[in-house]
C-alpha cells in the first residue's frame, strides 16, 4: 500500500511531478441529467496522471455562479498519446454548475496530477472494485490499469436505478466481471453486496479490495476485508482549498493501530488504506 513520504529522504525534497497548465476543452457532454463528461487536452500532465489521483480545476465564472476556489476532480481517464485527461462529474453546486457551462474550444486551468493514487499489490491476480455514484468515475481508470497489467477485475456498481449506473461499459470494455446492484430492486443492500464480495473471495478472485463513493459500502468492504484478510484501498473526499498539502483544510481522521490520526486527503490521499478509514 501507499506509504507516507519520508521527510528524511532529501534536504530539498524532489517536487512531485505536478503542474498548473491551461487545458483546452475537446469534449464536454451530458451523460444524463446530472453527470457530465469533460475531456481536456493537457499534454503535460496526461502521461503523469494515475488512477486515484486528482486535479484541482479552475471553474469558469458565469452570471450566476462565481466559484472562488478550485474544485477537485478525480482522474476519469488519461490518454498520454493524445495528451488528454478526462473527468466525470456530477453537477451539484456553484462550482460544478459553472464548470458545466464551459464550451468546447475554451481553455481552463488545471493543477495536477495531485495526491496518491491506487496501488495494486505486485502479487495480485484479481481485484474487486466497489463503487457508487461519481465514485465509479474514480474506480474506472483503476480497472483499466489493472486490466493493462493482466489483473482480473470484478466490478460491483451500485446505483439508485438502472438509469444512474455510471461507466458500466468502461468496466465491461476491459473484461471486468460487472455486477450491477440497484436500490430499485433492493440488490444494492449491504447484505447482498457482502454476499457478492464473499463470493469473489471464495472464488479466489479478490486479492485486493477497492472502494469509492459510499460510506455504507466502504464499511461493508472494510469489515469483509478485515475478516478475510484482504488488503484494500478507499478513495476519499474532503473540502479542499489548495490541493497541494499546504492549507490543512482537507484532513480526515484515520484509525491507525487504535489511535486516531488526521491526514490530508490531498497529499496523504485521496487513496488510503481501507483498513484505516473511519466512517463519515
Amino acid at each position, binding site marked *: 500500500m501507499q506509504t507516507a513520504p519520508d521527510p528524511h529522504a532529501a534536504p*530539498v525534497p524532489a517536487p512531485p511531478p*505536478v503542474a*498548473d497548465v491551461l487545458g483546452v476543452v475537446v469534449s464536454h457532454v451530458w451523460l444524463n441529467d446530472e453527470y457530465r463528461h469533460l475531456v481536456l487536452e493537457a499534454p503535460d500532465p496526461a502521461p503523469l496522471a494515475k488512477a486515484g489521483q486528482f486535479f484541482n480545476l479552475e471553474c469558469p465564472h458565469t452570471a450566476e455562479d462565481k466559484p472562488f476556489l478550485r474544485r477537485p476532480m478525480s482522474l476519469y481517464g488519461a490518454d498520454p498519446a493524445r495528451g488528454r485527461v478526462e473527468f466525470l462529474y456530477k453537477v451539484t453546486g456553484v462550482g460544478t454548475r459553472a464548470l458545466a457551462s464551459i464550451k468546447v474550444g475554451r481553455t481552463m486551468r488545471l493543477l495536477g496530477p495531485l495526491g496518491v493514487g491506487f496501488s495494486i499489490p505486485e502479487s495480485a491476480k484479481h481485484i474487486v472494485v466497489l463503487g457508487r455514484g461519481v465514485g465509479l468515475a474514480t474506480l474506472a481508470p483503476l480497472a483499466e490499469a489493472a486490466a493493462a497489467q493482466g489483473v482480473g477485475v470484478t466490478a460491483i456498481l451500485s446505483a439508485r436505478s438502472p438509469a444512474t449506473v455510471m461507466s458500466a461499459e468502461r468496466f465491461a470494455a476491459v473484461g471486468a466481471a460487472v455486477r450491477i446492484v440497484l436500490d430499485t430492486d433492493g440488490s444494492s443492500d449491504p447484505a447482498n453486496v457482502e454476499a457478492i464480495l464473499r463470493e469473489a473471495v471464495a472464488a479466489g478472485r479478490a486479492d485486493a479490495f477497492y472502494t469509492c463513493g459510499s460510506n455504507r459500502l466502504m464499511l461493508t468492504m472494510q469489515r469483509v476485508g478485515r475478516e478475510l484478510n484482504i488488503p484494500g484501498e478507499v478513495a476519499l473526499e474532503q473540502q479542499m482549498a489548495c490541493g497541494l498539502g499546504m492549507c490543512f483544510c482537507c484532513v480526515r481522521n484515520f484509525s491507525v493501530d487504535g489511535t486516531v490520526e488526521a491526514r490530508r486527503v490531498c497529499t496523504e490521499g485521496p487513496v488510503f488504506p481501507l483498513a484505516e478509514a473511519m466512517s463519515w
Partner: protein
Amino acid sequence: MVGPASPHGAGPGGTTGIAAGQTIDQTVRIGSLTLRNAVMPASGTFAENLGAIVPFEALGALVTKTVTPQLRGGNPTPRVCEVGQGMLNSIGIPSKGLDHFVEETLPLYRGVPTPLVVSVSALSADAFADAVKHVDVPGVAAIEANISCPNIEEDGKAFAMDPRPTALVVEKMRRATALPLWVKLSPNTGDIASVARAAEAAGADAVVVANTILAMSIDIETMRPRLGNVMGGLSGPAIKPIAVRMVWQCARAVKIPVIGCGGIATAADAVEFMLAGATAVQVGTATFVRPTAMLTVIHGLVDYCRRKGFPRVAALTGAIHDADLTVDTHEAAS
C-alpha cells in the same frame, strides 16, 4: 508621504517610464534582512510542495505555517468554505510541535537560497519566548510571531487585540532572540495602529498587517454553520480594502517596516499595499486559486515600476499621494 514629483504622471524616472533594458532594483530591506524581492507567502498558505510550481529561489522569503510548542490537532471539518470573493478557514493551527519542526521540517529547506521565516505561536508570553528561543537555530532567517491567538493569561483574549499584552509578549520574545522578529497583527481589533506602536516599542523589527478577519457563514438549507468550528478567518480579495487601510494606518504609526497581507492576488494589489506603506507583501489565499500567483506579482511589480518610472520597487513604499488630504474621523460612521 514620500513620492515622485508629479502627482498624476509617472514617477521620478520621468514620465516616459524606464527603458526596457534598464533593470529595476527589486530588493527590499526588512530591518537587517535584505530580500531579493518584496513578495513572500503568507503563513499557512505555503509548504514544501509548492516547490513543484514555484521555484523557491524566485521568492523574497519563505514563511512557514505557524508552529506551536506542542502537538495540536486542529479544528473539526469542514475547515473551509468559500464566501463571495473570499474564503473562511478554521484550521485551528494543527502543529507537530517545535521539536518536530526543527528536526523534520527545517532540514527540508537546507540549501534553499531564500530566507526562511518561521511562524510561531503560543498561549502565553513566556511560552512565546520559549518558542522563539527554540527556533533560534541555523537555517532560520527570521521569526514571525503570530500573536492573533488567545492569551490564556488574559482570559483567552488574543494578544494582538490590545497594545498592552502585545507589548508584553513582544518584549519577552525580544529578550529571547537576536534574530529578526516580525510580529503579525490581527485585524480583529479597534485600533491596530496602537498595537503596531506597542510592538515597535517592545522591539519588533517589522509588523505583518494582517491576519484573517473573524467571520462566519451559515448554510440556510441545513441551518448549520458552514465550518465545523462555527467561526473562522476570512481571507482573500474580500478583505483587501480593510487590510490596505490597516497598512496605511500602521505605516503612519511606526518606523519599522510594515509587511502587507490580506487579499493580494495581483501585482496591482501589491502596488496598492506598497503605496499605502508596505515594504513587502505576503500572498496567501491567492496561491490556492492560482498557485503561480506570487510569480505574477513579482513580475508585475517590476512592470509597474518600469512603466511609472520608479527605478526601485522599494520606492513604492508609502508613495501614495495623500499629502493634500485630511481625514475626517467621522468617516467610519458613514
